[in-house]
């Protein structure tokens, strides 16, 4: 068989719908491409013409697994457009919310979506049955993440309370304190779960690529910072948005992103490679125990990076929660006089960089909107990885090969609903 065609109509256990196709001619992988299978919602288009306060409500609906980051990135971009400065206490609350989201998103992906690949389990019900104790731990940890979001945002899926200029409701001190009392237990759970991922055996696969993430001195940043690349470039969010190419292949329904004509990687593995020195101590320990040498170019290590971040995020909640309780916000919002403008923000979603950009007219309505999601940024990098990996898997039986392909796709933790917003 000289020409082989691989087609996976639906990759299960990822967020949103996607398939995969590849052509192999005499062992040479000619084509390897992820195919998104989500309809056109046109969120950016729908936001144009709407009031400037609405993207904070509309954009979380892009994605049910990472609504918090869309909510907050849109708020931050809008504050940039309107020239609003928010006090440190608000940023602390936002960072706590984001840590909560990272815990629930990573715990879900790690335990329920990727782990079964390593255990050769197709149906998670069997995972739940065979690993009852661990399942319970994963659920409890996710719950801690969700309740952290709820304490500040009032609801985990599609948060309510954060708005341009601050909050509609400030968190209850006692509720935050209760969370902090529970945090040591959550940390224990996170470490236990992270250790599971340190003990797995990862496929031996490497391909050099460019890593991009936020960077900020003394922080493992999620909410703010410059954008840096592993080859040493540095951008503001605005420079980055100007520099990248957003492009659509004629038969697709996604605007992919490249930088200097090259694919690049964002997400936990990028953050770990670029910022590991700023992890909290317990997360550092997990990283050390993983024996992963950084920088790592093995995309499967995105799983370890998420596990490390899950521990880090609990430590972040413990640290910032205390910071906030020592110095809580006095007002729930800053006063501002409306003035239109063009604003941009870049934050770190669980799956990587997220950029929101809004131009608001003096009539208070949105004139332009541009959103670049992490999966749109890394999907072409995943194609390149799959192309090389398929070549390396040439000797394997087709069933085995397809399982490995799925495993690599899931290691990336793609979110197709974000990608196709």
């Amino acid at each position, binding site marked *: 068989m000289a020409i082989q065609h691989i087609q996976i109509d639906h990759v299960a256990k990822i967020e949103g719908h996607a398939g995969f196709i590849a052509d192999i001619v005499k062992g040479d992988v000619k084509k390897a491409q992820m195919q998104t299978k989500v309809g056109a919602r046109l969120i950016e288009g729908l936001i144009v013409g709407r009031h400037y306060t609405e993207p904070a409500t509309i954009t979380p609906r892009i994605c049910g697994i990472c609504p918090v980051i869309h909510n907050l990135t849109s708020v931050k971009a809008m504050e940039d457009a309107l020239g609003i400065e928010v006090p440190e206490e608000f940023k602390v609350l936002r960072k706590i919310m984001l840590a909560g989201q990272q815990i629930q998103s990573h715990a879900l992906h790690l335990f329920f979506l990727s782990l079964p690949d390593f255990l050769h389990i197709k149906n998670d019900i069997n995972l739940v049955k065979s690993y009852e104790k661990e399942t319970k731990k994963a659920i409890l940890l996710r719950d801690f993440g969700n309740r952290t979001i709820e304490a500040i945002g*009032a609801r985990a899926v599609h948060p309510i309370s954060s708005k341009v200029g601050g909050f509609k409701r400030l968190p209850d001190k006692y509720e935050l304190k209760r969370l902090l009392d529970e945090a040591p237990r959550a940390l224990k759970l996170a470490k236990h779960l992270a250790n599971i991922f340190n003990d797995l055996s990862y496929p031996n696969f490497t391909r050099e690529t460019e890593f991009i993430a936020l960077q900020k001195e003394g922080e493992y940043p999620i909410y703010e910072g410059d954008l840096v690349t592993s080859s040493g470039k540095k951008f503001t969010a605005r420079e980055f948005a100007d520099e990248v190419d957003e492009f659509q292949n004629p038969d697709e329904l996604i605007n992919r992103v490249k930088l200097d004509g090259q694919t690049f990687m964002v997400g936990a593995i990028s953050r770990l490679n670029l910022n590991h020195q700023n992890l909290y101590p317990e997360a550092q320990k997990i990283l050390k125990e993983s024996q992963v040498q950084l920088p790592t170019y093995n995309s499967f290590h995105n799983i370890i990076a998420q596990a490390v971040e899950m521990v880090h995020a609990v430590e972040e909640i413990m640290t910032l929660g205390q910071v906030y309780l020592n110095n809580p916000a006095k007002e729930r919002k800053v006063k501002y006089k409306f003035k239109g403008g063009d604003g941009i923000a870049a934050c770190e979603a669980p799956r990587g960089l997220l950029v929101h950009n809004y131009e608001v007219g003096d009539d208070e309505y949105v004139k332009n909107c541009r959103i670049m999601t992490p999966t749109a940024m890394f999907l072409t990098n995943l194609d390149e990885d799959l192309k090389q990996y398929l070549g390396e898997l040439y000797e394997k039986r087709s069933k085995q090969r397809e399982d490995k392909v799925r495993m690599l796709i899931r290691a990336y933790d793609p979110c197709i609903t974000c990608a196709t917003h």
Partner: protein
Amino acid sequence: MSNTKTKKKLKVAIVALTSCEGEQFVMFDQGEEFLKLTEFLELSEFKLFEEVEAEPRYFDIAFVEGGPLSKEDLERLKEIRGKSKLLIAIGSCAVLGGIPEMKNYVNKDEKIKYVYQYTKHINNVEVKPLREIVKVDYEIPGCPMDGKEFLRIVKAVRKGVFNKIPERPVCFECQTNNYKCLLLDGKPCLGPITKGGCDAVCLYGGYQCEGCRGPLDNVNLENHQKLLLKNISKRHLSHLLELYGIKDDILENQRKEK
């Protein structure tokens, strides 16, 4: 032999059409309570949870979230309907049209060109709730739906009980919980005309109700709109009613009243 073993489990499909898939995460967020449902439900089709080689030919219940925005979505919806004894629409997109239904109120050809360079191959259909396309047996509204309500309904449906979601406004729970009335503050709150059951969570969060659970059956919408127009512009009101896709439902209700 325990009862659960002798009784056959209900075969269930959980299907997402184009959407944020938030309803699936709400289910997941119920943690052990959600997993406990598998004592009497067999998750025969749930792509977030499992990889199946061949999909079963029959489901007792299909939960469908999202809207049929693509040709594939539409085919999938019809296929699932054909295979299922009961089809339950979950979340605002499936029940009302949801956020994507905003498309219906703007020039969607312009909007698609705003977002994509190549558009010929893309379906850019009018957005409709599921019940306008296939027979829907039950609806659980909300953006997202309330997790506790979902669990309650599933447990009742298993016994063949389909309780109608009470025709009580969001204000009922808002007042029971002693939240501040934002309408009195001059905020454009849709609480009085919106179906409750959400525990007035938005009011808890300090935000007005924007109607994601859809309008009540017998309620004076015109009066409420007049009230809101004292504080907000017509454009603002119009946008508010478009947000979760209730504008057409309200117009339809008004037509019926006349």
